[in-house]
């Protein structure tokens, strides 16, 4: 094979995935934005104007003027959407903090485990991630129901004499999110904690720090990159989560992923669901940037 051909092949390594992502990732967002400015119509596709260059440039220009921000105005007028955004962010934030509290001791324990056991422990954390998300959320329905296994167990223990109502409440959503996203939190935490130099903690303790003091002053600050990465990996998808609020949260739970789904599948209002998606994306752009930045930095350090 000659050099020139190799150079072309080398370029293709970049061009092929680049083009794919442009067409199937970036262009769709442009289309979402465009349709969010259109109006609902009873047609297929159910919106108007249908923008295309097929009818020549003048017609295209004319239709461009038919676009409007009406859907966005509509989103601000109906309190439903505002409440859904706020409650999604709050639910995601609370779940993220809870995940951190649950995941940190696990990751810490794993990092402290004898080196020979670590690969097995790591494997055990990743394994549930390989089983279906839907199945794992579904499994909690049987546990949390009023006549479910948790209530049966607690009644049997005599801790409670009335079944607890957990399913269809926010508590159920918190449990669902913490449970489903736990590996995403544990893995980055473990990655930073495992690399940490134990002699630093020994030094702190030799200098008179209590174990807890050493943890707060040495271990935790050093694990911050893992904390940030883990929190972003949980928070961002949790804001737009659909399956968990739908199956565990009951009908009165307001979360934006679910609102978008209903707007699209039940009301068949494509323009409004596009507008909901655009605002959701704007809401998530800062956390996504933080995540990208953390990723890029980790990559530079790995080099």
């Amino acid at each position: 094979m000659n050099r020139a051909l190799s150079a072309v092949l080398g370029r293709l390594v970049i061009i092929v995935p680049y083009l794919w992502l442009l067409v199937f990732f970036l262009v769709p967002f442009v289309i979402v934005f465009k349709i969010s400015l259109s109006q609902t119509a009873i047609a297929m596709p159910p919106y108007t104007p249908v923008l295309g260059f097929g009818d020549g440039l003048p017609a295209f220009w004319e239709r461009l003027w038919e676009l409007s921000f009406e859907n966005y105005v509509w989103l601000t007028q109906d309190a439903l959407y505002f409440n859904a955004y706020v409650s999604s962010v709050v639910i995601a934030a609370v779940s993220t903090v809870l995940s951190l509290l649950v995941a940190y001791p696990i990751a810490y324990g794993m990092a402290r485990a004898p080196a020979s056991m670590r690969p097995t422990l790591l494997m055990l954390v990743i394994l549930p991630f390989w089983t279906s998300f839907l199945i794992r959320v579904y499994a909690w329905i049987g546990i949390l129901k009023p006549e479910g296994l948790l209530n049966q167990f607690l009644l049997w223990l005599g801790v409670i004499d009335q079944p607890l109502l957990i399913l269809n409440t926010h508590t159920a959503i918190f449990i669902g999110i913490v449970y489903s996203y736990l590996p995403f939190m544990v893995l980055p935490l473990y990655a930073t904690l495992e690399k940490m130099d134990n002699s630093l903690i020994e030094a702190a303790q030799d200098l008179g720090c209590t174990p807890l003091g050493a943890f707060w002053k040495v271990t935790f600050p050093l694990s911050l990159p893992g904390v940030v990465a883990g929190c972003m990996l949980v928070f961002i998808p949790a804001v737009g989560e659909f399956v968990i609020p739908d199956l565990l949260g009951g009908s009165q739970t307001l979360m934006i992923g679910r609102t978008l789904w209903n707007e699209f599948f039940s009301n068949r209002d494509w323009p409004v669901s596009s507008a909901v998606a655009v605002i959701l994306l704007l809401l998530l752009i800062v956390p996504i940037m933080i995540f990208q930045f953390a990723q890029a930095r980790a990559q530079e350090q790995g080099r």
Partner: protein
Amino acid sequence: MTGPGGWSRFNIVSIVLGFAFLYLPIVLLIIYSFNESRLVTVWGGFSTKWYGELFRNRGLMDAAWVTLRVAFLSATAATVLGTLAAIALTRYTRFRGRILFSGMVFAPLVMPEVITGLSLLLLFVAIGLDRGFLTVTLAHITFTMCFVAVVVQSRLLSFDRSLEEAAMDLGATPAGTFFQVTLPVIAPAVVSGWMLAFTLSLDDLVIASFTSGPGATTLPMKIYSQVRLGVTPEINAACTLMIAVVATVVLIASVLNKRREVQRQRDEQAARRG
């Protein structure tokens, strides 16, 4: 409590509790799939009758077949694209639009599925592609290739580049170097990338619901529509089978990986002695 660096009782307890939390729901689900009683939470004795029911349920079986085909095709394409993307990101540090490219590779990892699903559907409508098997497959390639890219990229970053340089010095072309040196070394990561893409595609409900059309109902979509009507032992059985399939694949892969690792160590020792 033992001293620093040791494994304290607190560490052990938190790991045990953490793993109990992770595994108990799945174990309970599997146990109750063998429940005789139709009431899911009341134990009525051991039975495999729900598995029989499951195999007689044509709708579920068709959906399972569609899902497996979509997962196989999309994982294979996503592995090729994801591996290329990983190479582009690690080996070409400077090219026009690199920031946009790395953004497009990492963003889908955290992008809410409702947004990905909706945007892909609108694309398919805009270009006049009928919703069905093809559109689900294209959508799955797109979101799983980024996971493959991340897995392969981490392997490429820890890879000793002097091996590649040595091959080039000895007169290998870049393509030859890739196939004879780089690919064999990153192969385990490529394989686990494929498996990750396969299971992600197998599991996906939201993106598939948006991008699929009549005749291409996937298993998660089928399971979801039944779950909304209530928990049934039949679905427990279907879930248990899905878990069994995934567990088998992961187990085989880890055994193969272990064997390769042992072989590699043996080769290295032989090389050192010889």
